[in-house]
């Protein structure tokens, strides 16, 4: 008896997974179709445009690796948003946590001389810690003051943004005659040139390895530990969790802290592995907001976020190639927007499929 119940549960889980995957593919298809309509309206050939986009990404080992380089930071912010969502919190603040992570990594790399290798590791950890602190602030305010995390994280995003600009422009960090910081010190860089002959100028960096590790970390914490169970329980029903003896305030703060840490790590690996400095920004770069998209396309699931991050990274990189045929690269944002919109309304498609299947088989609804 027990076995059959378990078996049917597993079968059901499998069908949900398959369904989710199929419906995500369908959404992507709808997004690409909408993109081609817009291309046609504005006088471009969709086949040529998509050929340029996908050819530009999948063409050579180098371009494929560039897509991975684009994907690495948004896998981290995607995980950050996913982790928060899974515990009932909406972290719009991945942007600010990402900025603080990158900034902390820069500061450690410039001010704390350490031997190569160790230096990078310490700087990455500092980035994770800074992101965690920035996230935990929002968590604490939510838990103990009842202030909605959405407002707090929006404010913290801007505070982080201007704080980063401020630090970067102080005499200690500013590179003379530029609007950027000095370079990250050589000992703290975390990329390797070992594969230059295969991937050219692409920076193969630790973040690309760390991203799947972070995915596994999230998945295990959420699904296989009592900690994860507690965090999710609080997200699901705060009062019931409290009644069950869970410290709600600590759980919310911890959730936001872990979520912030993930985004902070993303900022750190991007600064140390790819960019090598921080520029004074005029507008938010949007890594945190990309993380929200990645989380949605990944079905709010850590493993999904990995693939969604690769997909989105590829689209972003491929979008930059659209300039070759004169089409605006913002097409990609429109396509991603339509994809997420389609994912949002997939529930209706599901209901429709369910309805027709039931009708065909003569089952009652």
């Amino acid at each position, binding site marked *: 008896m027990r076995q059959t119940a378990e078996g049917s549960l597993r079968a059901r889980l499998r069908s949900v997974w398959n369904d989710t995957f199929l419906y995500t593919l369908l959404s992507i298809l709808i997004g690409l179709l909408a993109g081609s309509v817009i291309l046609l309206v504005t006088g471009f050939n969709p086949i040529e445009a998509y050929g340029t986009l996908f050819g530009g990404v999948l063409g050579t080992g180098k371009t494929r690796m560039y897509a991975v380089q684009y994907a690495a930071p948004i896998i981290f912010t995607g995980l950050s948003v996913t982790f928060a969502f899974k515990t009932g919190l909406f972290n719009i603040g991945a942007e600010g946590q990402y900025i603080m992570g990158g900034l902390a990594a820069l500061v450690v790399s410039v001010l704390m001389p350490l031997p190569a290798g160790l230096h990078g590791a310490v700087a990455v950890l500092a980035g994770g810690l800074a992101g965690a602190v920035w996230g935990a602030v929002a968590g604490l305010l939510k838990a103990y*003051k009842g*202030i909605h995390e*959405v*407002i707090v994280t929006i404010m913290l995003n801007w*505070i982080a943004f*201007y704080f980063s600009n401020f630090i970067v*422009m102080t005499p200690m960090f500013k590179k003379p005659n530029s609007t950027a910081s000095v370079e990250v010190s050589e000992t703290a860089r975390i990329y390797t040139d070992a594969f230059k002959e295969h991937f050219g100028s692409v920076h193969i960096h630790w973040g690309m390895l760390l991203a799947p590790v972070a995915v596994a970390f999230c998945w295990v914490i959420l699904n296989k530990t009592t900690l994860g169970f507690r965090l999710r329980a609080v997200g699901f029903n705060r009062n019931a969790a409290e009644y069950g003896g869970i410290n709600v305030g600590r759980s919310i703060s911890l959730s936001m802290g872990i979520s912030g840490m993930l985004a902070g790590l993303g900022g750190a690996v991007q600064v140390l592995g790819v960019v090598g400095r921080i520029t004074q920004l005029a507008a938010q770069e949007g890594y945190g907001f990309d993380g929200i998209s990645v989380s949605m396309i990944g079905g709010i699931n850590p493993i999904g976020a990995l693939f969604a991050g690769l997909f989105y990274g590829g689209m972003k990189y491929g979008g930059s190639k659209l300039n070759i045929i004169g089409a605006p690269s*913002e097409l990609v*944002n429109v396509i991603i927007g339509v994809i997420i919109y389609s994912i949002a*309304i997939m529930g209706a498609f599901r209901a429709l499929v369910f309805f027709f299947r039931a009708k065909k088989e003569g089952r009652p609804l």
Partner: protein
Amino acid sequence: MMFGASDIGLLISSTLTYATPLIIAGMGSIMSETSGVVNIGIEGKMVIGAFSCAAASTLSGSPWIGLFIAILVGALFGLLHALACITFKADQTISGIAINLLAPGAAIYFCKALFDGSTQTRPVELTGKLPLVLGGVFPENSFLDFTFKNYVSVYVCLLLALCIWFLLFRTRTGLRVRAVGEHPRAAATLGVGVFRIRYFCVVLSGVLAALGGAVIPLSTVSYFFPAIISGQGFIAIAAVIFGKYKPGNTVLACLLFGFCKSLALSLGNPKFELSVSVHLLSMIPYVITLLVLLFIGKSHAPAASGKIYDSAGH
């Protein structure tokens, strides 16, 4: 150098000017939230509102045509959100996220397509901007002149807030809107058309958000550029939560924000010889908002906000 009377007048005037788009978009957010539909797509709708207004104004030469087009585009995106959230019973946050990607993406895409690959529209002519009112009433360059000579949008937005308050709290429709947002099933049993009310509110919310964006290229800056909104939609949403979903309080929250912003900018003016970094000054509005939130504490959203309503009862 000290603050003179004219500086204070300018400070008040620029407070009002900065608060205007926030107030208009904030009223949009209130309409949607009160009816029980979360609308974080305000940001994206402000961007496309600013673009469509700037593009239509510079191509036609009239700000009114610009505003009209912005209203249409805002209604269209409002409808898109309503369709997802109400008819298709989609997750309201996810639909809002989609619109925040879709609308700015479309704005910049069509900007490049219409204006030779540039991410900026052509500037709106000086004569094509919104009129300045109460200009000749007070002696030129006096305190009162500096304070009250403003774009017409400043006064219209205050009037708008009053109308929204009246609509929500003094009319039968408003009572229905609030009922639908608090307990849709109870409202439905009394014969209130939940879907119809929500469609009306969400579409109106889109229109107001787009108008909030549209007044920017017609007043402070004269053209559209990608960073023209840069978070003002989210600030408007924050002001609404901050203002506890009441129009009057929301206006005050927007004014506080506008005040901090213009204070930061005027303190940055070299004539005051403050040696504080402009970046630190720019943080002021956000830090103060957080501090004020610490003191006012909790804000309760309408009970049904964000929940999917299904008339079939499951």
